């Protein structure tokens, strides 16, 4: 073993830039669920294109029109005979929020507790980085993940337009649809961050956030089954991300996505307050 003493002429340490070290670390920690979400999105989209001709021949309109199906999708599709309608059913309905929102909620929920579990939080907070910066960088990492998911889905749709002849995808409305759905992902991110701010175990925090998303989906589904339950729809976040509307009907209630953004912000900021005030357990 080499045995040396500390050099006698030790220079004064030069400053190193923080950069976005915590953000980079958080994205690295989240790469598996983020990768899975992108993989699923791309897979679904790339399967849809080749099967579309066969599905277009089949008469699904009666099924799509049913109240149960409409409740599950989060909206009515009156004309199923084009590729955008298939995209609406398979990717951009409420199922989008459940699947991709679930992934984002999981990532957001786990991003802070995983640093408690792997011991890096203690070591990080013993350094000159504020809890606020640490939290915001972690949140930023989750939001980068939401943008990645949205861009991957856009990529998938773009590839589909080369496979499906006369796909009829209206790109301005497609981007609006993606924006509306991104607002939902923003909400899911804030929800996850809030859960992760006070739950010490990453799986528990991520699972809690996913559970709330699932609850929102169930509320949205049951609320849509009957006129008697219409009032419960408004407490579900899915109500404010009706992506079928912009994609199929070319209609958008402008303030709906803002409800999700504001809710996501409130949850994220609430998580920041909790994170700043709490004690952290020893590893």
């Amino acid at each position: 073993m080499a045995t040396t003493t500390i050099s006698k002429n030790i220079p004064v340490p030069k400053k190193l830039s923080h950069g976005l070290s915590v953000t980079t670390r958080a994205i690295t920690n989240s790469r598996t669920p983020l990768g899975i979400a992108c993989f699923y999105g791309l897979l679904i989209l790339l399967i849809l294109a080749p099967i579309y001709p066969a599905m277009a021949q089949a008469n699904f309109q009666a099924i799509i029109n049913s109240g149960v199906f409409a409740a599950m999708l989060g909206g009515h599709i009156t004309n199923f005979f084009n590729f955008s309608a298939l995209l609406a059913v398979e990717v951009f309905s409420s199922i989008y929020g459940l699947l991709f929102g679930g992934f984002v909620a999981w990532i957001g929920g786990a991003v802070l507790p995983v640093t408690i579990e792997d011991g890096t939080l203690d070591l990080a907070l013993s350094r000159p980085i504020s809890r606020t910066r640490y939290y915001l960088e972690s949140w930023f990492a989750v939001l980068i993940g939401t943008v990645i998911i949205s861009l991957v889905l856009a990529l998938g749709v773009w590839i589909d337009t080369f496979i499906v002849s006369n796909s009829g995808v209206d790109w301005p409305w497609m981007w609006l649809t993606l924006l509306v759905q991104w607002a939902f992902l923003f909400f899911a991110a804030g929800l996850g961050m809030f859960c992760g701010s006070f739950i010490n175990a990453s799986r528990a925090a991520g699972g809690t956030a996913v559970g709330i998303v699932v609850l929102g989906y169930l509320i949205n589904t049951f609320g849509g089954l009957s006129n008697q339950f219409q009032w419960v729809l408004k407490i579900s976040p899915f109500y404010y991300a009706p992506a079928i509307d912009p994609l199929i009907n070319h209609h958008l209630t402008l303030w709906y996505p803002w409800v999700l953004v504001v809710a996501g912000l409130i949850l994220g900021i609430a998580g920041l307050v909790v994170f700043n005030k709490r004690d952290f357990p020893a590893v």
Partner: protein
Amino acid sequence: MTTQEQVIVIDKLEKSYGKIQAVRGISMSVQRGEIFGFLGPNGAGKTTTIRCMLDVIRPSAGTIRVLGIDAQRDKLALHKHIGYLPGEVRLPGTMTGKQVIDYFSRLQGLEPVLLNDLIARFDVEVKRPMKGYSKGMRQKIGIVLAFMCDPEVLILDEPTSGLDPLLQKTFHELLLEEQARGKTIFMSSHIMSDVEKVCQRVAVIRSGELVTIEEVDKLREKAGQRVIVEFGDTVTKEELAAIPGVIDVTKNNRAYHLDVGGSMDPLIKSFSRHEVLRMQAEEAPLEEVFLKFYEEPEKATMTKQ
């Protein structure tokens, strides 16, 4: 006695978790250039105190100032000057040692000027993912992380945990060199040899309360010496116990074990009246002194330096 600068000042620190009081109003100070030991049994409040110093947990009452900076209010300014080694070094399995070092260097905002020295000195492996590291290897990384940016104050929680005896010796040498460079070191430990070899003063905490703060040299005097003697003629236990300075006498087969405090002169003069077959004298281990503070509240006295 020269008044030295007080680098760490803990004043009436309290920490409660609901009804459980982990730390009950402890006060102590550490001077510049001192290696200060912080001892106590498991669950005494050592790690809680250290984590309060770093603002990872918030005190219920009391203040902590390090380098004159409030540890709760101005922690960003303070943490530029601190190196910390946690009680258990856990690091992400997917990161290599080098990645860990780069990450925490950036969070520290300072170039790790001592990195190469430390890696060479402790023979640290930095290229493999941490999941393949043993406890001792992770501890070495933890030591590197604490010292690499040449901080002014080092806060170390059980620093030699997991290190083999040779590395413990290397670590002690490092501490003494850092002390010679004017660094201030606050370390908690279960290992008495750490304390005996490097600390100038120690504080003992038990059940959240400070039991004593003493200079290690004075503790050595209190511990006295242990003498093992075999006589060729008949000597009674009572006769030996009556010698001035003898604290305790036990007999083991033919040999007498004596705990002696103060001067050895009365003992030697008494022995000269008998036939001594064998005699061995050594400093009594400090461990027994500390264990008294750990176990027997009636024998512990509050002394402050």
